[in-house]
């Protein structure tokens, strides 16, 4: 049986879309409102999907306490109620678009020891969502 378990987590953070590769006018043209110098925020929803064998003694692919603990440490604590551009090292020189945040979350969770990470789906708002399932097997993501 192929089974995947998905857990949803909430995360509030602010960001500003601004690239040092473009001048002021171009940044404003490309990113629009998201280029506001003071930043703005979202209630993100992170969906974490893992797969693996079900342990017959627990009936579980991964113990939820282990997954919750790992996600709390790797994602929620460093990202929640933070300004991603400044408070998260990875985004000091990478635009924290939801695409990039999604890939960063994948990279941070792919070594979860309890099960195999399949994909990250990140909802920026109820209307926009992004998914990343890593590169083809064997490729390094980070």
């Amino acid at each position, binding site marked *: *049986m*192929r*089974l995947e*378990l998905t857990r*949803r*987590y909430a995360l509030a953070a602010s960001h500003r879309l601004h690239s040092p590769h473009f001048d002021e006018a171009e940044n404003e043209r490309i990113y629009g409102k998201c280029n506001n110098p003071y930043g703005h925020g979202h209630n993100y929803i992170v969906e974490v999907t893992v797969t693996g064998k079900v342990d017959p*003694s627990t*009936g579980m692919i991964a113990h939820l306490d282990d997954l919750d603990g790992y996600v709390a440490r790797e994602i929620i604590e460093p990202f929640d109620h933070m300004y991603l551009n400044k408070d998260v090292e990875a985004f000091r020189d990478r635009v924290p678009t939801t695409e990039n945040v999604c890939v960063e979350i994948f990279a941070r969770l792919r070594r979860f020891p309890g099960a195999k990470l399949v994909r990250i789906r990140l909802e920026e708002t109820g209307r926009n969502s992004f998914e990343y399932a890593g590169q083809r097997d064997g490729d390094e993501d980070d």
Partner: protein
Amino acid sequence: MVHVTRKIEFSAAHRYHNPAFSAEENRRIFGKCNNPNGHGHNYVLEVTVGGEADPLTGMVLDLKELKEILEREIMDRMDHRFLNYEVPELADQIPTCENIASLIWKLLAPKIKKGRLTRVRLWESPDLYVDCYGDGTP
């Protein structure tokens, strides 16, 4: 191929307990879910059938038929039941979302004659669901 998804809801009680573990181990591993009297969830089940639309009817399968299968195989068996005691297939398993989704797959796959069951998605709560793909790939 076209995929058709139907959603149903059922409410059921369960308890996580493995008789091979000591009482203390059970509490440590399963936490609140080990409460001897059980607890319950409003499960949401999404069943997806894939196939080609029949050129005469324009349908992959008759949704009325799927509705009846779900009524008979899932609702009658699981709705307002204590899964550990009232669903024999789960008697010697921990009734986790993983195991219930697998059971639902096994119950439904042989009953669906038009199209093919491609995914069973079982939500235990708004922040947790399991997808079962049988032996296929997602």
